[in-house]
């Protein structure tokens, strides 16, 4: 197991768990502690009589603990892993697994096999076509209703929307879910992220509404569009591409750098975005995962690591979303990426990409030799020609970034989204700062 303390702490579901985990990373707390190539396990003496039995599956990262905590991983799992990073010599290396550890690991392996078998089941093509046709019908009806709703909104004007924002799109969003157009429902939910207390909401709202309208217009005319655009539209409307179908696509083999990992939670669903950059292909990839409730990421990817991996992009125009097919972790290396040094190139990139795909939600970019500037209480990224853009990161993040750069030039990775620039990662030589 080659995890650093920082990396283990990133697995913590919250700061309190990280702190509690740290408190358990001590010899005194563990009655037994063992390791072999498959697992790390130990008995932690809590306040009760019986110690908690904690197991960590090292092959396919997962935690199990007999404690009643609902957090995942619990403080015992984190504590055990942290303790190992601190003092591996305190662990007993053994080839034999105790019964409870072996049983759990075997069960997990069995589940994996049954999952594959389930996936291998033959599909009833006729029933599938029937389902697809029925869904298409539902979606078309939903789209018609959505178009009528948007028209009603613009006919009456959006002036009073801030007063009734909670009810404004509630019904139509639910209707899109019923119409099996989940993508459209997601697009409509974006409206609720607009800050209606801040000037500028008018532009954001009308842009969102007219963009959804454009999406429905494009969908109604799919037969006139190229296949890549059709795929893009289908995804935006809510059709999903099965993981196994994506994996059949062509692989891009490269050394991929994990530029940033961000998560955000909404309605008990955690969305994780892992941004990768191929050293040779010079292309970005976004691995998007969704976790419900206490689900745990099933990967061991951390910001800053480099992997030798084969990735496959989801079909679409200017594809970004991808799946990792195979991967192998590489030793830690400096983030030495050749990229543009002119901010005007980022604007050019935005122009190019939007002209090809107006529905593009996020545009990633890397810049070299840029500076974080604080001027008149605003934050900017500036190149050596003193051209730049305003940074949308919160104030606290911006101060952290300035402290990291110390006024010196740095390289950065950022995302252009909703007409705003968010910086995710900065680096100067071998020093990296993950803002997010």
């Amino acid at each position, binding site marked *: 197991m080659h995890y650093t303390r920082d990396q283990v702490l990133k697995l913590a579901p919250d700061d309190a768990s990280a702190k509690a985990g740290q408190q358990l990373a001590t010899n*005194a707390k563990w009655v037994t502690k063992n390791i072999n190539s498959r697992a790390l396990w130990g008995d932690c003496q809590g306040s009760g009589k019986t110690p908690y039995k904690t197991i960590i599956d090292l092959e396919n990262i997962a935690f199990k603990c007999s404690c009643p905590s609902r957090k995942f991983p619990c403080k015992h799992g984190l504590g055990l892993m942290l303790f190992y990073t601190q003092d591996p010599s305190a662990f007993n290396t053994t080839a034999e697994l105790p019964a409870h550890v072996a049983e759990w690991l075997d069960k997990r392996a069995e589940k994996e096999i049954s999952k594959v078998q389930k996936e291998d089941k033959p599909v009833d093509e006729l029933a599938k076509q029937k389902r697809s046709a029925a869904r298409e019908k539902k979606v078309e009806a939903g789209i018609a209703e959505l178009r009528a709703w948007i028209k009603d909104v613009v006919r009456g*004007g959006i002036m009073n929307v801030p007063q009734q924002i909670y009810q404004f799109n509630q019904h139509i969003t639910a209707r899109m879910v019923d119409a099996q157009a989940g993508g459209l429902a997601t697009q409509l939910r974006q409206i609720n992220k607009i800050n209606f207390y801040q000037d500028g909401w008018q532009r954001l709202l*009308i*842009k969102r509404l007219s963009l959804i309208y454009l999406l429905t217009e494009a969908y109604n005319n799919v037969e006139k569009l190229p296949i890549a655009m059709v795929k893009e539209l289908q995804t935006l409307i809510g059709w999903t591409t099965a993981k196994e179908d994506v994996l059949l696509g062509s692989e891009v083999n490269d050394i991929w750098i994990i530029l940033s990992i961000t998560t955000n939670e909404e309605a008990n669903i955690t969305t994780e975005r892992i941004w990768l950059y191929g050293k040779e292909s010079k292309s970005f990839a976004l691995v998007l995962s969704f976790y419900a409730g206490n689900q745990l990421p099933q990967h061991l990817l951390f910001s800053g690591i480099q992997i030798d991996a084969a990735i496959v992009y989801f079909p679409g125009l200017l594809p970004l979303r991808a799946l990792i097919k195979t991967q192998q972790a590489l030793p830690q290396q400096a983030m030495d990426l050749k990229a543009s040094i002119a901010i005007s190139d980022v604007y050019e990139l935005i122009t190019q990409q939007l002209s090809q795909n107006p529905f593009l939600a996020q545009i990633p970019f890397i810049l070299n030799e840029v500076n974080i500037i*604080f001027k008149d209480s605003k934050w*900017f990224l500036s190149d050596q020609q003193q051209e730049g853009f305003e940074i949308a990161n919160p104030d606290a993040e911006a101060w*952290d970034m300035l402290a990291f750069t110390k006024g010196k030039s740095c390289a950065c990775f950022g995302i252009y989204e909703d007409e705003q620039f968010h910086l995710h990662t900065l680096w100067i030589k071998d020093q990296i700062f993950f803002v997010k």
Partner: protein
Amino acid sequence: MIANEILKTALLGTDKHMPQASSLLQETGTKLNALQTDKEDRFLKTAITSLLFEEAGKTAISVNHSMPECEEETLPIISEGLATLMDLAFKGNDEVLLGYYLYLIHKNKQVITAKLIPSALNKALENKKLATTLVNACGKTGEWLGALNDNWRKFFEKSQEDDLWETGNLEQRKAHLVEVRQNDAAKAIELLTAIFPSENAANRLMFLEQLQINLSLADEPFLLSISKDKSQKVKETAINMLRTIQGTSINRLYLDHLLRVLSIKEERHLLIAKKKVLDINKDILPDEEIFNTGIEKVSSVKGVDDYIHITGQLLSYIDPIVLAKQLGLSLEELLQMFFQHKRSNQLIPFLAKSAVLFKNETWAAILLQHHEYRDLNLLAVLPAQDRLNFYQHFIENQMQNLLNYVLEDEYHILPIKLAEQLLAYLAKNPYQITLPTYQRFALQLPNEILDKLQRYSGNPSEDYQVRYFKTKASEMVRMIELRNNIS
């Protein structure tokens, strides 16, 4: 701007307004207007094409501003490991560990990593006690960053000191006065004389209290001038200072009276040996003037005569060295004579007060050796190492106050015997201190105590109190291990 027309329509609604075609998007506008659809459809298509057109056509703005680069740090930067621990302490608001890390950083003459500086400076804003060490740990980068931030700037401002005194906030003015007082006591008096009449009572009192630093006879004129201040508290503080400064008119009054009533006499012992004894003449009455300086005329304690009470009060304001010299005795001899006096029990508390006030180590050490005269405050007079011998005497009755002395700023490791005694007491009385105090205490426990702590933490008893102490014992083990890992 194209967007303005679009926004106007969006706000008012297409029933009331339709946007004019933009000159920049004439071709698209013509095509959209030619559509045989309703006006809402045409508006929505115009809106998205215009807004996307505008977005796609944006160019970089001129920033035209460069920031000075931060100077290189002259001190070494802390290890990555300590930086991670500090980051966790900031996030977890763990002030015990933060205090310890800052002590290590200060001791090793290091500075924190740049990434930690915003957290450190924000912490300094909310925690005045740690503020100075936090700011010092930020080094050159902190200074550079602080100059750019309105909230942090005050930590690094060394500007025009006189301006600070006149225009700074109360904290800044106080800090300035303290600094001046430490370097040039007379200058501090000059500053105070100039502003005293125009300050409110609370400020006057706060400034006056700072004169305790380097208090000397030279301060007498100023203190006398304010001894009739309108504020009772200011007046009392000034008079109290005058009482403690050796050589002031008030203090001379006290000493003169003491020299009149105290005398060393020779007594025959067993008819052969002669022995010097201290005599207190109860017939000599003090000047009435003395009672105007806050000295109580009548004893309120049963069994304590008024003359003993008055003598005791006066003794507490006289430096033992001065008194011993005046009586031609050594410090030890003088104290011994007080011990032998028939009213020693009534007088010694006043002598202890004097020993504390004038930081007399000789008297403090002697008094602490006598269990009947032991006063916890005397510990403050002794150097940290010398105090260790006396801690055990206060464990049973004054544990909480004792910890104020035990847990000192240098994190000296306690002798194993004392650590065991303290631990044994806490095991029996686990609720006397809070978790942060347990954590802080653990940082001074010797490694040899680990076995004992582990025994406490493994105690199988289900008794509530034992279980409570069990968790505290394991927390102390963790703190010791953490300390050992850092070093």
